[in-house]
């Protein structure tokens, strides 16, 4: 039924002669990375002024919000960059273990205590949070620079002599198109699939950013990123894709717990399953409305491993 609908819509749609990787860079990726760099800068400033948790929360929320539009990119500078900016999922508990060790040992890596003398000389955790915020600012700036001053040109010059990475425009297009679909797969399989676990063994503790109650918000923002990148690539409206994004929002709107903590409740679980199907539906819509008309199938994904 839905396939028929998509096929019918496609026949009416104007098919682009050539999707625009440059527009994706200019309209979404590069401004997104710049906004993330700004947001982490503000967070680091906040933390330098007052590193106590209540003072950091608004800045952390803003930084996370700025991250999601570009956070699922796993290509070139973002492959290593994303690992240390937003390390998740973390099936062996590295983050918990490392933070616990640093705090327990009061590892001097947290920096010069006198820098935060007014608020934090006697509180290691507070200083550590400020140091991590400062490091995040450094990483965000480095990532934005790596794209702006390096990899963006590699994508734009696809097919030009001397570009050994992308031998044609289609190769660059396939690379970024793979990122769009890969991000949506990550959202469905990991952001939603991990806390869902199995019916008999749901795992709410595995939800992304559950402590800050942001798990559901990440799903919405990541889906929106996929939708927006598809539109930027297409250069025109994608009505089927936009309708699918609407269904993601509708499904998300029916979920009451922002961290999926109630996932063990069968009714709550069903609502999360519906959201997962809606994210899969967005994936299908983009593949049909953007990928198929361009004749592009996704390539290998950095997250193909187990």
């Amino acid at each position, binding site marked *: 039924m839905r396939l028929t609908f998509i*096929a019918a819509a*496609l026949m009416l749609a104007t098919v682009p002669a050539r999707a625009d990787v440059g527009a994706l860079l200019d309209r979404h990726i590069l401004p997104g990375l710049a906004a993330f760099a700004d947001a982490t800068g503000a967070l680091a400033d906040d933390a330098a002024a007052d590193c106590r948790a209540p003072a950091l929360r608004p800045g952390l929320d803003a930084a996370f919000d700025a991250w999601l539009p570009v956070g699922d990119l796993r290509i070139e500078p973002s*492959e*290593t960059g994303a*690992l*240390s900016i937003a*390390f998740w999922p*973390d*099936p*062996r*508990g*590295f983050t*918990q*273990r490392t933070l616990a060790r640093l705090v327990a040992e009061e590892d001097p890596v947290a920096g010069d205590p006198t820098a935060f003398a007014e608020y934090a000389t006697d509180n290691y955790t507070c200083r550590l949070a400020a140091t991590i915020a400062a490091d995040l600012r450094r990483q965000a700036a480095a990532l934005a620079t790596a794209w702006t001053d390096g990899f963006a040109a590699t994508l734009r010059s696809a097919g030009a002599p001397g570009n050994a*990475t992308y*031998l044609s425009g*289609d*190769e660059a297009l*396939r690379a970024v198109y793979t990122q769009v*679909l890969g991000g949506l797969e990550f959202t469905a399989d990991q952001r939603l699939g991990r806390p869902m*676990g*199995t019916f008999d*063994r749901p*795992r709410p*503790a*595995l939800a992304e950013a559950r402590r800050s109650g942001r798990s559901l918000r990440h799903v919405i923002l990541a889906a929106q990123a996929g939708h927006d990148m598809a539109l930027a690539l297409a250069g025109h409206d994608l009505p089927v894709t936009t309708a699918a994004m609407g269904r993601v929002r509708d499904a998300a709107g029916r979920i009451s717990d922002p961290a999926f903590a109630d996932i063990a409740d069968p009714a709550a679980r069903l609502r999360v399953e519906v959201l997962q199907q809606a994210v899969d539906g967005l*994936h*299908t819509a983009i*593949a049909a409305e953007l*990928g*198929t008309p361009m004749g*592009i*199938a*996704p*390539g*290998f*994904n*950095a*997250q*193909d*491993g*187990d």
Partner: protein
Amino acid sequence: MIRTILTTTALAAGLAAAQAQTAAEVLDTYADIAAAKYEDSLVAARALQVAVETLTADPSAQKLAAARTAWLQARVPYQQTEVYRFGNPIVDDWEGKVNAWPLDEGLIDYVDGAYGGPTDANQLAALNVIANPTFTLSGTEIDATDITPALLEDTLHEVDGIEANVATGYHAIEFLLWGQDLNGHGAGSGDRPWTDYATGDACTGGNCDRRADYLTAATDLLVSDLEWMAAQWTEGGAARAAVTDDERAGLTTILTGMGSLSYGETAGERMRLGLMLNDPEEEHSCFADNTHNDHYYDGLGIRNVYHGEYVRIDGSHVSGPSLSDLVAATDPALDADMRIRLLETMGALGQIKTAAEAGFHYDMMLARGDDGGEALIMGGVDALIAQTRSIERIVAALDLGGIAIEGSDSLDNPSAVFQ
């Protein structure tokens, strides 16, 4: 969309008949090499089984060393099979039993105090089943008095739904033969004393009889699991049928296996991630310090599938019409490019292996701030990513070449090509 495909098929019809035969031969070679690799893995695992029987019957330092040697030898053919994992559901569904990694080894046996106890991610991370004949799981009492293959496989493996609870396979056996590597980023592997298998008062680490039972059960299980998989690739086997029934899907399977192992799994999960975490245990064979060989033989397995030529552990060759031949017929320059990429990867992985064998172990390369180690590992990562791009080009080129298609998902759903 349908009309486009029909047109393509019609245009390619003359060529397709000739190429269909070639594709079938390529798939036969692919299956023949799989059969040889899994049979070699089985032969080597049986040798390990004999060494384990010898060790547990009359433990000594020499017999533990002999079992370790047998394990290292068994890894050589097995790692070359990993290219069959992604893309072949029969292999992928089974693989977790024999090569699951990483593992929370405290599930199995005693660990150093620094290992820690249960974590949020895994409440059973320090269960130590060798020391505990009974334990409670989610309120249910589990009887582990007799350590049998069935206990490991059906009860312990991935217990509580946690993938890090690895109770079976090569890495569980590796832990039982070497023990934890407590050298951090320094030189040296695990150093389990042979007396962990000694009888009576000579026993160290406690419960030596249960440890021997565990080692025996895990090794027996490895052998039976490999017997099963080797059978899937013989004439009439299900895995062979799955790749040879549909030529287009079969070729896609070959390329999916090559690309996913190159990129997401080896370059990403096993190499780049470990480097980022700077964790000396974040290496594939962390107890035996054999990770340089894991990566090297994974790379070799990818290469010998493309070339359609595998050198068996007895020195004989299995070869036949290859994917390389098929690509060369369509796009000789692309075939040449792919061959060069594969060689460059073997060069980069060879440098890691060379350095490790000269004493610069993989866990030393992972140390924070070790520029030489980082360059070696990233050299492998970059080469694997570069070869993945060429694999993607081959996928595109073979599509354009009008390879005979029947019943492929990719016709109906282009995005299914790499699922």
